[in-house]
């Protein structure tokens, strides 16, 4: 009888020693398969703010290109008011993470224009998916470009059901327009807030605010950027706000600000950045 008892115990131990790693393996395997199911092509799509052209990010891209190990080719799109698209630049054959800048012929400020620009972004986006056959991408918006992206993610991304967004970063995006109030009330904000359920729940999102003084970056009030938390928090997986101060923190300088470039490299592009930049970014995230 005693011998039998031992046998059962050994049997049980062996069973657990097989089943537990087997289960773990199957989870890892599924994850590997999932990653393998994603296209190698994963562009970084950028939308500039109002009154800015498709060339708005040239200095940023140049700045990014200085240290990044991999050169990104740049494709620029301009969407006309009738939805037709003009292309300039090109994506190199072996570049799987190209930069694509989407500008608009009508790039004026104001809620009515931003609503239209989100629709045009959708037009451009669908054309890009069709041409380059990617199923995941990263998005970056400066100023009102961030609002256009947010509207797009809330309302129009579901029209491309096979495409998912990996990361999203907005730089000085005024979720409450020019209002300096700490309680957001503008119609733009209300619209963004109303459709927030549509945001992909797996989204990792970074909102960067620049401050020249304690209240704004000279153009966009800090409180307006800060209003983004009401839209994103509890809707997306990760929402992180970063405040950047110091030299070159006026609104229009922000995209090529060295600190922001560092943030873009580590958090949007998920590059393997040097420890110096990593530490600097870490301080920034904790210091806010």
């Amino acid at each position, binding site marked *: 009888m005693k011998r039998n008892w031992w046998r059962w115990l050994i049997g049980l131990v062996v069973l657990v020693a097989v089943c537990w*790693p*087997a289960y773990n393996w199957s989870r890892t395997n599924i994850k590997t398969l999932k990653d393998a*199911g994603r296209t190698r092509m994963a562009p970084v799509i950028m939308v500039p703010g109002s009154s800015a052209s498709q060339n708005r990010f040239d200095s940023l891209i140049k700045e990014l290109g200085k240290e990044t190990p991999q050169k990104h080719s740049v494709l620029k799109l301009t969407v006309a008011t009738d939805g037709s698209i003009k292309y300039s630049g090109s994506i190199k054959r072996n570049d799987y993470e190209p930069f694509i800048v989407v500008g608009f012929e009508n790039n004026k400020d104001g809620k009515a224009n931003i609503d239209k620009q989100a629709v045009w972004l959708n037009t451009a986006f669908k054309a890009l998916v069709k041409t380059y056959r990617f199923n995941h991408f990263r998005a970056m918006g400066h100023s009102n470009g961030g609002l256009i992206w947010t509207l797009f993610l809330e309302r129009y991304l579901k029209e491309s059901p096979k495409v998912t967004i990996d990361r999203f970063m907005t730089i000085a995006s005024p979720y409450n327009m020019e209002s300096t109030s700490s309680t957001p009330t503008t119609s733009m904000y209300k619209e963004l807030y109303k459709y927030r359920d549509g945001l992909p729940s797996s989204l990792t999102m970074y909102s960067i605010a620049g401050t020249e003084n304690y209240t704004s970056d000279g153009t966009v009030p800090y409180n307006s950027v800060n209003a983004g938390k009401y839209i994103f928090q509890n809707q997306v997986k990760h929402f992180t706000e970063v405040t950047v101060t110091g030299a070159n923190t006026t609104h229009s300088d922000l995209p090529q600000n060295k600190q922001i470039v560092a943030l873009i490299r580590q958090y949007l592009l998920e590059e393997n950045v040097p420890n110096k930049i990593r530490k600097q970014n870490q301080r920034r995230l904790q210091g806010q």
Partner: protein
Amino acid sequence: MSSINKMMNQLQRFDTAVAQQRYFRAIRDTLTLLFPFVLVGAFINVLNQAVFSKNGFFNHIYYLSHWIPGFKLWSQYTTMLSISVNDLIAVIAAFAVANFVVRSTNRDNLLAGLTSALCFVMLNFNFDFFSDQEDANGSQFLEGNLGSQGIFLAILVGLLTGWIFSKLAFKPHDHQLIESRTHLLQRAKNNMLPIILSLLIFSAIGFGISFVSPMGLNGIFYAAFKLPFNKISHIMITIFLATLLSNLFWLIGIIGPISFSGNGSVSTVQNLQYAIQHGSAWGAPNPITIHTVYDAFANVGGPGMTLALIIAILWQSRNQDFRLVAKTSWLPAIFNFNQPLLVGLPILYSPLLAVPFLLAPMASMVITWVALKLSWMPPVAYPIYRTMPGFLMGWLGTGGDWRALLVSVINLAVATAIYLPFILINNRIVTGGADHEA
């Protein structure tokens, strides 16, 4: 109930009667003779395919290739062992069958066996060898048919050669303890006619077959699977027929055709794509395929749910031969290598064990089908591999769904229940009569 009992008894009597028939005895003796080689081969297969293989179960779960030094060399070494031991087993079978047939008629069994082995290999000549094309397959024999899948053909050749020797060697063979050259030459003279006749007959058959089937006689057997099963409207009937035919083939010693259909078919790939995109196997486009029903749930311990047979034997059998075979064969059976049981018990050519061997997988497939139809569990969509323990396949193939594991366990229990009465009947001959069971 009594009519079932009666039928079972008749089956047992038939089984015993068959076993006493001369040619059938030769077959059974041969299978038992093969047992040690097949058993060793099965353990080699476990090492080669479950441990030292890219898709081996143990390599997957313990990441062996990452930390075992010389993993690739181990893989090559065990592959060499596996090919040498397992993939030539039918040649031994051809030798042994003719040997046993002729021995019982007191003729020269050694020469008959050797002739039979030669004839069997000749039937598997690769006629592609003569092809002028550049990409012609260079090997001289169809090596694939010399392993366990060739046992049926080897038995046929052995029986026919044995028959020829029994009829045409006029002088009885007198066995000598110490052979002399004179006696050996005498044996050659006495058996020249059956040797030449056997070689002539089988060479003619082999040559003739080459015009019909480039893959030899075995190629013709496998052509049966290209029958238009898929024209049948209901997919479950197709799956039933295909697996029934396959398991029948296994029973007569054509071991191989669809033992495991693999992860490659279009419907399986579609299921995988769906599961990856949606993060779950629920609602996969092809819930009922031969892969999701048969591979994953009706193949526990190899075709015929043979792990259930082992459980039934170890639990209830009083047949010491059965117990010995089961005790030595359970480990490979966990990784779905059941060949030691097929030749050891033997299951091959046993009317008694053939019935549950065919029924148990059918029952498992019905249970699985019902569970899938009623959405009790998601279908198997993630890849499963041949050497995964059978009762874990459903669980791992659904990405860790406990209900699938439960269905596997139920299947195993039901299959054991199906095997059990046949083991009890077998007990009666061992204990010498149907006294207390009825």
